[in-house]
């Protein structure tokens, strides 16, 4: 049974992606309860992150009558309602119910006039979880790509975690790191972008995946557009420097100067937190994927590990880049001084 906190429903995962198209409308083809449940969850998370929750999410409002006679007409009505608002894109997410009764969602959407419609199959009972929904949505939205492949020297971020508290901080850090190489991020696929921008998928020279769970998406885009990819955002001091080297290599840029500058930046950061040297800490929430970074911090700051007074958290996922480590160390310092 899937009861992991990090998993959940395919529908919620897909919605976390499609809601990030700023001029898009998402239709959930299912009962109102599915819409209410998933939307409430995302709303609560966004508000908790001090973000305005403004996506337009509609329901095809399936009731028993549609279950018996088919829900395709209800979907057509919902699409007409959505189209009347002149969105840049309509995303249709199926639900368990519409999938179980076999509504031909693709056919309905293909025959509907108006804006682009992207279908994401998200019947949760089919066995997928939240991350499968994210993946399905990214692949479904990739059909909008229109410019690639052209390899214009820019970077595309793939699959930012839209429900993550520090998503924008991670973006800023990646922008900073890539600027050291003289490279800019052209497309965030998909976070806070209009539908028209999604056409730029495939035109960049490098894709950077949020994490390795999206490796399959990265492989598919590599085959379709010829775009190489880095399989995760950088974590840790050494990991961040390796990231710069790898990005430089993939983009055909000499990264030595960028690495040198970032190493100096990291040394300044380490000296700024010299008060943490030799402190006894007990890591809270440490999982195996974060172990290398935890070991690196132990080594850099001569930390002693044990059941010491400083119970310092190791968040999952880890904060990105040198700036992420800076935020983490500030937090540890507050705890150790308390």
């Amino acid at each position, binding site marked *: 049974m899937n009861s992991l906190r990090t998993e959940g429903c395919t529908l919620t995962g897909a919605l976390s992606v499609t809601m990030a198209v700023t001029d898009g409308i998402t239709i959930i083809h299912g009962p109102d309860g599915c819409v209410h449940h998933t939307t409430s969850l995302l709303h609560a998370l966004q508000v908790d992150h001090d973000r305005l929750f403004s996506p337009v999410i509609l329901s095809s409002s399936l009731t028993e009558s549609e279950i018996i006679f*088919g829900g395709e007409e209800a979907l057509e009505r919902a699409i007409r309602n959505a189209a009347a608002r002149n969105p840049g894109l309509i995303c249709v997410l199926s639900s368990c119910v519409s999938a179980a009764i076999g509504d031909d969602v693709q056919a309905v959407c293909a025959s509907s006039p108006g804006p682009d419609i992207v279908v994401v199959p998200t019947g949760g009972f089919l066995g997928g979880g939240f991350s499968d929904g994210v993946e399905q949505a990214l692949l479904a939205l990739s059909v909008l790509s229109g410019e690639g492949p052209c390899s214009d020297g820019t970077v595309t971020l793939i699959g930012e975690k839209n429900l993550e508290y520090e998503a924008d901080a991670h973006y800023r850090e990646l922008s900073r790191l890539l600027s050291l190489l003289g490279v800019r991020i052209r497309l965030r696929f998909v976070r806070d972008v209009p539908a028209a921008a999604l056409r730029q998928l495939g035109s960049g020279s490098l894709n950077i995946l949020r994490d390795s769970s999206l490796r399959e998406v990265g492989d598919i885009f590599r085959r379709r557009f010829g775009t190489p990819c880095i399989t995760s955002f950088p974590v840790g001091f050494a990991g961040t420097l390796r990231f710069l080297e790898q990005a430089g290599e993939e983009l055909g840029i000499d990264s030595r100067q960028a690495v040198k500058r970032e190493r100096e930046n990291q040394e300044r950061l380490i000296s700024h937190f010299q008060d943490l040297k030799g402190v006894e800490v007990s890591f809270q929430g440490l999982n195996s994927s974060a172990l290398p970074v935890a070991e690196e911090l132990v080594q850099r700051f001569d930390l002693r590990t044990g059941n010491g007074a400083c119970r310092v958290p190791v968040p999952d996922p880890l904060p990105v880049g040198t700036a992420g480590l800076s935020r983490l160390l500030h937090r540890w310092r507050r705890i150790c001084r308390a």
Partner: protein
Amino acid sequence: MKQIALYGKGGIGKSTTSANISAALSDMGLDILQIGCDPKRDSTRMLMQGRLIPTVMDQVRERGDRSIALDDVVFTGYGGVRCVEAGGPEPGVGCAGRGIIATFQILERLGALHGDVIVYDVLGDVVCGGFAMPMREGYAQEIYLVTSGELMSLYAANNICKAIKRLSGRSRGICRLGGVIGNGKNLEDEEELISRFAGRIGSTLIQFVPRSPVVQRAELNKKTVIEYEPESRQAAVYRQLAGNIMKNTRLDIPEPLEMEDLEALAYEFITN
């Protein structure tokens, strides 16, 4: 009140048999309700002089389930038999099984489920939980399998036994196999084959109905055999079947055959 359900392979003659049982029972002075549980909606046609009555699902589609009245869905046919057709979605869309469940809920709410005998005529195979509805929730206590001696018909009947066995094992399960109705296709030793099959699954052949051109003549005249040729031998067989069902007290939990055993049984009758 006796509640019976007829199941069997599609096209095997369930509706013809059901309608003639209902007609025969009504001639005995009993109050009968026949419910067609098939989107094809033709279970009660011969009781209604060829008329395809509006279905419960038609009414739901047109006006919603809350404004349906008893007269909208229950129609009186031959001998006062009250006729209901569940209906369902157009072929290829929606969920017909859910339609059957909704029909039962509506009929319950309207107080339609009363009389001396209720006859449920159910779609060919138990394709999903919805079509098992007559066996569940305390509706039909007695299930009758309609089958010919053809292997695929026996195969379907055997499959339905699996559903009966499963549902009868539940704490609230009251359905049992009342018997097997043989509907002849003029095969050699067909009655004996069906009788042997019935015995092997732990039941009994309650009646063998031989093939007769009277059935087709009656249907072309939009009547049951009971109404069209009441003095015919075929009508007598249907009356005997109806009488046997009313007298039947043997209710079994069937033991379905393995496929190879079923084939071996059928093969015995081909070679002999």
